[in-house]
């Protein structure tokens, strides 16, 4: 139960921060990305402000044996700079540049009720689902072990 309340509080604080920062507005994000136009450096202050907290905080928090309400820290374990990382970051970069939306601000912007935001988030969930179909197909017992199986691979 405390973990659920923490998730609700952290999510709400994150959403509030996004709203205050102005980053829910794709025009402001594109204003930052458009270095050859009327450049708006606000995004640096948002990321800088967040890192001002997370950079020292992570150092202290990760020295603890465990988090307060869980048995351990769930941290990424991969370390290779592989094609998936680079390819994924590239595809994301194109989508971000085309729309001015990344996942957090897009989800938070659902609060505005604007139809194009719903269209973007629906497409984003579609893209994530497509990734799941291609790369995270569950292995069903027996199918892999049977060489005569006509199951799609």
């Amino acid at each position, binding site marked *: 139960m405390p973990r*659920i309340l923490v*998730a609700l509080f*952290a*999510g709400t*604080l*994150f*959403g509030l*921060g996004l*709203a*205050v*920062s*102005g*980053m*829910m507005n*794709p*025009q*402001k994000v594109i204003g930052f990305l458009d270095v050859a136009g009327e*450049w708006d450096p606000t995004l640096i202050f*948002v*990321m*800088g402000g*967040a890192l*001002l*907290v997370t950079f020292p*905080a*992570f150092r202290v928090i*990760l020295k603890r044996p465990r*988090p307060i309400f869980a048995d*351990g820290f769930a941290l990424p374990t*991969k*370390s*290779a700079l592989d094609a*998936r990382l680079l390819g*994924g*970051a*590239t595809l994301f*970069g*194109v*989508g*971000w*540049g*085309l*729309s*001015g*939306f*990344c*996942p*957090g601000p897009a*989800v938070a*912007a*659902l*609060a505005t009720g604007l139809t194009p*935001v719903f*269209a973007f*988030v629906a*497409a984003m969930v579609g*893209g*994530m689902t*497509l990734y*799941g179909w291609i790369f995270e197909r569950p292995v069903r017992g027996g199918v892999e072990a049977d060489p005569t199986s006509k199951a799609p691979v």
Partner: protein
Amino acid sequence: MEDFTPISGLIGGLLIGLAVALLLLLNGRISGISGIVGGLLAPRSQDVSWRVVFVAGLILGAFGYMLATGGAIPVNMQASLPVLVVAGLLVGFGTRLGSGCTSGHGLCGIARLSKRSIVATSVFFGVAILTVFLTHHIL
């Protein structure tokens, strides 16, 4: 630079950083939005409830801001609907393939000095800047 809003940007960033730090300190979780949403769609979804509640909080926080300030949050989309849909597909697929987005790689990964996150963040910022340059100044 009339749109430059460094003070509200900094305050918003500090609030986001605080949220990220709290989720790690209390729940031991990384605040990567694409990972949190993506975890809901996996064939064997894990820890569904905290993910749903976090995502609901994101929307609630933005909604609360609108109630408190008595105004709408500006969300100006220059892209047409078909472009937004294509962009959404790319953002969804790309963030899952690349294991993270602006929050997971950009805020949490860089704070951990993760080599993967520093490289991924450089790539998606670079590609996004190039994409905006091509679509706004060349095409």
